[in-house]
């Protein structure tokens, strides 16, 4: 199976997950978007050498995974697949910053190693929070949340429209690439000479499709406005969700909870 099919399946998978009906799925989408953003900003705001203090942040994704009924595997897969860039940038930290930062027993640990591991932790946290947002919230609901958050209407409509057609176009590209690879086997990608005509033809077909869609929309009375049908009311539970997590994030940011816990447990021994 090639990359396109993988991505297509993944999108489908998220769509299915978002269509579930758990307590998390029932939350107001705006609340989830805001909480996710807050979480990511909080994670990013930790000091560069923070390791231990970051761990309590894992409670938030764990909460969503549990209550939202989301399989961990799909998150882990994405984390691993998007890792390379972060690794590429972060891997140099241990080599460039060799000043001793701490001792574990008699081992000296360099600051670079700490900050590198910290990068990996931040990465895992922010990636899983983002994916959990789309796994528990349908795209329409996110669109609604965005327009409630005063994102210009045209961009909300654009995102929703695009999301709707991604499936169609990926399927089309998938078919084209399959046809190409059957006729030109054992090649690493589409050859130089056919770049233009392969993508160009797809493009022409896409433009024709846009034309047909436009006509179909006109037939159904399209007047340039896209109206989002579903409306959500903010309930007490939504506000509680936002407030509790905000307080939690701030608390975790200000107090190094694991450190404190450890001290408490080991109290007399250290």
């Amino acid at each position, binding site marked *: 199976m090639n990359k*396109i099919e993988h*991505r297509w399946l*993944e999108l489908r998978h*998220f769509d299915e997950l978002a269509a579930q009906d*758990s307590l998390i799925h029932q939350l107001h989408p705006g609340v989830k978007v805001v909480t996710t*953003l807050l979480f*990511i900003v909080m994670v*990013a*705001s930790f*000091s560069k050498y*923070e*390791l231990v203090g970051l761990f309590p942040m894992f*409670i938030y994704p764990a*909460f969503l*995974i*549990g*209550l939202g009924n989301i399989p961990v595997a799909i998150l882990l897969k994405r*984390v691993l697949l*998007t890792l390379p*860039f972060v690794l590429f*940038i*972060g891997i140099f930290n241990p080599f*460039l910053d060799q000043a*001793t*930062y*701490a*001792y574990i027993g008699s081992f000296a640990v360099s600051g670079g190693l700490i*900050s590198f591991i910290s990068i*990996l932790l931040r990465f895992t946290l*922010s*990636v899983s929070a*983002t994916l959990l*947002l789309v796994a528990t919230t349908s795209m329409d609901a996110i669109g609604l949340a965005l327009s409630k958050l005063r994102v*210009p209407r*045209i961009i909300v409509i654009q995102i929703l*429209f*695009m999301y709707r057609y*991604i499936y*169609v*176009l990926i399927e*089309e*590209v998938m078919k084209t*690439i399959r046809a190409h690879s059957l006729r030109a086997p054992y*090649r*690493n*990608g589409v*050859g130089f000479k056919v770049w*233009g*005509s392969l*993508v160009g033809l797809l*493009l*022409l077909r896409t433009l024709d499709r846009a034309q047909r869609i436009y006509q179909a929309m006109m037939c159904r009375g399209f007047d340039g406005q896209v109206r989002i049908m579903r409306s959500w009311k903010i309930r007490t539970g939504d506000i509680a969700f936002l407030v509790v997590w905000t307080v939690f994030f701030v608390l975790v940011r200000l*107090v*190094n909870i694991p*450190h*404190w816990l*450890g001290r408490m*447990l*080991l*109290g007399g021994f250290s």
Partner: protein
Amino acid sequence: MHMADALISPAVGSAMWVVTAGLISYSAKKVKKEIDDKKIPLMGVMGAFIFAVQMINFSIPATGSSGHLGGAMILAILLGPYTAFLTMASILTIQALFFADGGLLALGCNIFNLGFFPCFIAYPLLYKKIVGDQITKQRIAIGASLAAVIGLQLGAFGVVVETFLSGISELPFTTFLIVMQSIHLAIGLVEGLVTTAVILFIFKERAEIIQGFPSGKTLGNLSLKPILTIMLVVALVTGGMLSWFASGDPDGLEWSVTKVTGLEELEAPEGIYGVLADLQNKVAIFPDYNFRDTNQAAGEPSSGQEAPAWAAVDSGLSTAGVVGSILTLVVAGGIGKLLQIVHRRHKKFAH
């Protein structure tokens, strides 16, 4: 290449969000004025098209490797800069959401790097100038290639500056710059070649799409004034952040958003630690254990310390830290597992 949330500081992330949000609402206004309702499905479908085409691998002649398309230049040439910018923004948003390419905090950076530079710099200043009114194959080829390469070079430069300003990576500025610019020169060449090939094909098959697409030249034109204003804002924001960066701790260690925004972060833990210390005195195995000694260590290192900052923070990684971390993770996992059970119960009763 996408900036990632893990490598960015909140200051840089939110500054770029502000800049990008400004650009988006400006473009949205522009597009709204000029748009006929035909454009709405066109933008959506073109966005989906670029999204799908980005997944095609193009084999690079004589190297055995393959690359893929960014697509901003194709969009700019076909739709004009404003519409192209909005379309790129939506593509990057979907990628950030579903494929975790980049991330939500870094989204502003990514839209700026991969949307602003090609649509508002490379397209009007290179492609438009080179192609001019007399559209020929050669001009398209040179214009599209050059614009794609330069657009990507600027984008890569953006990544380097944003990473550097965030201060999470240790990479020295110049080394990182040289590496990124040269990698992106190669990527940009492929981008340029693919863009050229596609645009030339369209030019051959349906020239009208490129010459006057979709209804007139209005969308292709771009006044420089707003662009210059935006560049000025970017320069100010960047300059402002740099000066904060410089005026902080010399080794830039503690540079974090709380410092940048001037919040009195060090004050806050005192109260909480006081309460916690009391609590801890009550529950710890040895009540007279001195919590105060570690309170500096657990929080942010204070800026006025004589000793190197290293010593101040290290106990975060002491045995207690390790034990506490494991415990926290177990708790997090436990909460997840427990909630899963709750969810199943809930489901059972619901049916």
